[in-house]
């Protein structure tokens, strides 16, 4: 099915949009979201290619999905205030005035 190959090329082309976002940023979150979108596109390419390349490609897609999530968790953890926090929790801390001075660096 040449059509599937065309779809794969199309998804790859849309992936380049994500790359531009990673390049330009401006924020860390923008770049990380770019990676997230690239991950979704990569999974889509593998899914599309699966009938052509063999269904084992789906296993690769599954791993990519799993590790894409891990990278995102790793990111929010790494950039949290003490390296082990959670932005939601940090927000709670920021909301209580007494803790405000502690959580802001």
């Amino acid at each position, binding site marked *: 099915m040449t059509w599937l190959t065309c779809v794969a090329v199309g998804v790859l082309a849309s992936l380049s949009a994500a790359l531009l976002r990673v390049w330009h940023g401006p924020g860390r979150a923008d770049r990380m979201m770019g990676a997230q979108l690239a991950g979704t596109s990569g999974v889509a390419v593998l899914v599309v290619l699966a009938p052509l390349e063999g269904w084992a490609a789906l296993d690769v897609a599954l791993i990519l999905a799993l590790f894409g999530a891990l990278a995102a*968790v790793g990111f929010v953890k790494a950039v949290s205030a003490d390296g082990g926090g959670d932005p939601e929790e940090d927000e709670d801390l920021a909301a209580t005035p007494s803790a405000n001075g502690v959580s802001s660096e």
Partner: protein
Amino acid sequence: MNDLATYAFTSIGLFFFVAGSVGFLRFPDVFSRLHALTKADNLGLGFIALGIAFQAESWRLVALLFLIWGLMLLAAGTMSQLIARDALRERDGR
């Protein structure tokens, strides 16, 4: 028939992908971009998975396809929440 369904659904999926990517590039700020990312692309992936499911030789593969989609949805949902909060923090300079 199956091929036809594949054509149709993968086309829709590809459309969402392209639309989502354009939005991701063009939207002015990080939060609307997040919107484009989580909605359109995961919808696109869902349609593509659906299209490919018509080619699958067994139910195991269909299940696998939707497990992949579900995992991506879960990841995207969680991550958009967390990344958005980090973006808030970054914007507020904290």
